[in-house]
């Protein structure tokens, strides 16, 4: 078999083999899943090292072929997807809280196969096929992770939000394909589309909606925090933290710089979307009191940085966006893994019930610290370098306001991780957690690996930039200079100021909250104006999905139903009523009276003669 097909076909076949196994077999399913994921990872690494190749089959009629292509960006993405699949399959080995193991692993492998397909597809229809195909597994992943109704409801929410935006993507793809005359992305890139006329703007916006919704940006993010509480930690670490971000940002990049040549207006739209996502989500994250829910809002907020980076449209910003894409997946996935480990060992994710876990779970604690420092953008870990590139790119566009928004985001990110780390791993340990032990080795291993990547991509930031990001930019036909290098310049000092501000804020919050770390955000949470806003947000007043489902959909469908009832009246009640009326009226004349019949006949004859006479007489 062709090497390119292995990362798609192997997980697919293994997933169906899993379904045939009994739920009672011990470790057989896990071993199969881990094996498939590792082999796929090796294949992906091999593909990455080989020069780009392509593979094509005739598929949907003659116009649309099934084309896979391993250019540098695709190969990089495939490697990332396979890495996270392998990490999660190892991580879930001895985690009971993931629903039925068989179905969990089935969903995992299917998601991997389809995500690999998205990464490799060159034809937009093939990409759409894999992209939309993920929907089914997104649903079953969440719905089966817990036996509660809330899980089913959240699964439906996730499914509907993504299905609707996937339809937008479908519409975008068909219009793009029609304007360009081909569905092949590499062919379109030779002759990029411009936003000169309304159809191409419409097409790009639809593609944008599909991409940012997959990445989980505002306002399509609202299922992610719900899933944090209603599904399992490995799901969160795998799909919303890693796979969705990778695919969404990947396609956003393709659409924005590879397929279309954007103009200044669209650049502003993208950067605004990024900044709004950063701020809205981080404000929500800051006040959360649940470990996973807090992380989930950060998963949204970090997407904003990537969109902001891509939206700058300059090489530095795009490089920052792509670098942040992989960095975020690494540390966010690692953070969700620590959440899963804490949940497994203590039975809760509620910050008010946790505390002082560092001594009993030192490895988890260290991993958490590394990942938290990374996500907060503190030098010299990987998050610092990618954020620095994004800041530079933003400043280069001249719009300082977006830079400011990004820095405020950084401040709140660090503040909320101070709160989270303090509440979970430090401070006083509650009585019932005295016996807590460290998580099993199979969970620690992937956590350590990801934390190691955080450190390696930080201290050796040149390596990933030269190996992954720079070739990706080349694959996107972007000319660029040297990307790496640590400079103690103004940006670095601003980041130091942000760190100090966050620490001071934490101190203030602590003293205001009576020394309890989980209340360290209350001074902002319950500040005037903000308090009411947060209360509204808790009631889901800003949740586009809930508002639409509660108000817009019932209203529109009632209106349409009225139209339907009217048509029913017009085709059923009205004709039968009319027929009844006329037959009733005519039957009144048919009463058997001879004089009446004669009178009617005579009257009819007279009318006929008059009519005939007025038309020229009888002839």
């Amino acid at each position, binding site marked *: 078999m062709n090497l390119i097909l292995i990362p798609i076909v192997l997980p697919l076949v293994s997933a169906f083999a899993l379904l045939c196994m009994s739920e009672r077999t011990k470790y057989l399913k896990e071993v199969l899943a881990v094996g498939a994921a590792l082999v796929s990872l090796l294949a992906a690494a091999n593909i990455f090292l080989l020069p780009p190749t392509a593979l094509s089959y*005739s598929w949907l009629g003659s116009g649309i072929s099934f084309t896979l292509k391993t250019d540098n960006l695709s190969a990089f993405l495939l490697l990332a997807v396979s890495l996270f699949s392998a990490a999660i399959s190892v991580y879930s080995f001895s985690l009971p809280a993931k629903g039925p193991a068989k179905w969990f692993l089935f969903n995992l492998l299917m998601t991997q196969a389809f995500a690999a397909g998205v990464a490799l597809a060159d034809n937009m229809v093939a990409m759409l096929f894999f992209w939309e195909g993920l929907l089914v597994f997104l649903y079953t992943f969440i719905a089966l992770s817990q036996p509660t109704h809330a899980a*089913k409801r959240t699964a439906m929410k996730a499914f509907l939000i993504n299905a609707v935006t996937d339809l937008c993507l479908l519409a975008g793809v068909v*219009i793009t394909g029609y304007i360009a005359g081909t569905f092949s992305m590499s062919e379109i890139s030779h002759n990029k589309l411009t936003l000169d006329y309304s159809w191409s703007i419409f097409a790009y916006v639809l593609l944008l909606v599909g991409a940012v919704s997959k990445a989980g940006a505002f306002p399509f993010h609202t299922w992610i925090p719900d899933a944090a509480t209603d599904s399992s930690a490995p799901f969160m670490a795998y799909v919303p933290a890693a796979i969705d971000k990778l695919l969404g940002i990947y396609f956003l990049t393709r659409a924005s710089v590879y397929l279309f040549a954007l103009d200044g207006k669209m650049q502003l739209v993208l950067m605004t979307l990024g900044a709004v996502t950063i701020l809205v989500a981080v404000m929500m994250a800051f006040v959360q009191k649940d470990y996973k829910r807090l992380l989930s809002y950060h998963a949204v907020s970090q997407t904003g940085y990537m969109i902001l980076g891509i939206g700058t449209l300059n090489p530095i910003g795009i490089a920052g966006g792509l670098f942040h894409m992989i960095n975020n997946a690494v540390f966010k996935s690692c953070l969700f893994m620590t959440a899963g480990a804490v949940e497994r060992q203590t039975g809760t994710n509620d910050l008010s019930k946790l505390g002082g876990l560092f001594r009993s779970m030192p490895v988890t604690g260290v991993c958490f610290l590394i990942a938290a420092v990374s996500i907060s953008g503190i030098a010299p870990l990987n998050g610092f370098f990618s954020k620095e590139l994004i800041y530079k790119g933003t400043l280069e566009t001249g719009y300082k306001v977006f830079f400011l928004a990004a820095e405020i985001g950084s401040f709140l990110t660090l503040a909320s991780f101070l709160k989270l780390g303090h509440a979970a791993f430090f401070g006083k340990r509650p009585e019932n957690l005295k016996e807590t032990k460290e998580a099993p080795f199979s969970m620690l291993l992937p956590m350590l690996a990801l934390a190691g990547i955080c450190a390696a991509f930080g201290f050796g930031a040149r390596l990933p930039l030269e190996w992954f990001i720079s070739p990706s930019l080349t694959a996107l036909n972007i000319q660029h200079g040297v990307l790496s290098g640590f400079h103690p310049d103004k940006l670095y000092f601003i980041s130091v100021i942000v760190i100090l501000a966050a620490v001071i804020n934490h101190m203030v919050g602590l003293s205001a909250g009576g020394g309890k770390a989980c209340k360290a955000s209350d001074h902002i949470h319950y500040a005037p104006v903000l308090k009411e806003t947060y209360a509204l947000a808790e009631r889901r007043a800003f949740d586009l999905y809930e508002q639409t489902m509660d108000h817009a959909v019932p209203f*529109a469908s009632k209106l349409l*139903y009225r139209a339907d009832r009217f048509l029913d009246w017009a085709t059923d009640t009205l004709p039968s009523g009319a027929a009844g009326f006329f037959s009733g009226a005519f039957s009144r004349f048919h009463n058997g009276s001879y004089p009446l019949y004669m009178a009617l006949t005579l009257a009819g004859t007279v009318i006929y003669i008059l009519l005939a006479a007025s038309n020229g007489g009888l002839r």
Partner: protein
Amino acid sequence: MDLPIQMLTTAVAVPVFGAFLIPLAGRVSTTARNAFAVLLGLFTFVAAASLFSTVTGGETADYALSFPLGLDFILSADMLSVFMASISAFVSAIILIYSLDYISHYENQTEYYTMVVLFLGSMMGLVFSASLLWMYVFWEMTGFASWRLVGFFRSDRDVAKANKTILVTVFGALCMLIGIVMIYFDYGTLDLRALHGQSISYAAAALILTGILAKSATLPFSTWLPDAGVAPSTVTALLHAAVLVKIGVYAYARIFGVTFAAPDGFSNAVLYLAGASALVSAGAALIETDIKRIIAYSTVSQIAFIFLGLASGNRTAFAGALLYILMHSVAKGGLFLCAGIIEQNTHTKDINKMGGLFSSMPVTGTAFALCSLSVMGIPPFGGFFSKFLVFSGAAQNGSLPVLLMFLAGAVMTLLYLVRLFYKIFLGDPAGHKSPREGSYTMVASVMALALIGLALGALIYYPSAYTELLTANLGVNLQ
């Protein structure tokens, strides 16, 4: 006669005449009657499908019986008619197998089987007819059979709904007859092969369209279809999902797609009408609480997508619409049959009285979910490809309002199907006693349809290559 021509004539004659032998077989024994009916269905399918090899080789099989005044009885098997006949006969055969258990609790079974097979036979006649007059004759025969079948239960309400069905469709058919007469006076023949590529007047086109819309339950004649949901679920699956409503669509493809060159303004009007139909019926599907009415409204809204493809005026859309017919027949047939299992085992059609059925009916639930996904157009199911091609064609057509209407229609399709699935299978159980799973043959039938939907997606190359070839060979006035 050649073998293909024999197959063509038997595909029509065997079910039409065989239907009248079913009462005789019923005299022998119930088993004999049931076996005979299923055999007739299977035989029809085999006969129709055997013609594939002929038509893909680029030939047609024709059979003619001459009548005076140019009103010959002509059967012709080309790519379009064989495609349509095979789908109809296949779904009908599955429905007959499913009926064995489903219908066994009711009275008038002999009439039921007779009418189903007669319906199948008239459908074959309609599809293979290459003369507008004989198409009309078979058209009315299907109407008659569906009238008896919708009124299968004999309460006043059922009979009233059955009368509504036939009155609306016959009204449309009579309008169509006037249109056909106008064509006859214009060209002196009703042989579709001779009329290939001719132009058609607006008046005749509008009259024929009235008949098509009435039969295919499209705005403004859509409401008879949900009302006909009083019939047994097998009947609704056969008539209202898979076969009968496709007659109108087929006639549109046959008359305006591969025979006459439809005027542009006419096609545009059809697009807007279909868009409105998609939206209105989807809205109704979100309000209704009767499981079968919801699925019926869903049919109305999906039929509109087929019209979108057929009327968009380009090859991509036309081929997509034909694929849509295939995917929708399979998936929607499956949904109605699932509804039959649910209805029979819960003794209600109200989705508010269901809830949480997945735990006691897992196979039905899975089949229902898979069929719904295909109707929604989610990959890797076959429905994805047909929806994609239809949208692709609509984009080429270049009308933004139409595209937006159908995008909204597709979104609403997602909403009502997810709502339906959630209300029936998930959610809180509403006071039922965890009904049993359906019988083996019934569950196997629905699962077969669901898996075929999946297989059609995996092997999309073959059906799409077929419809593309069909469009290239037969299409008239397509971009």
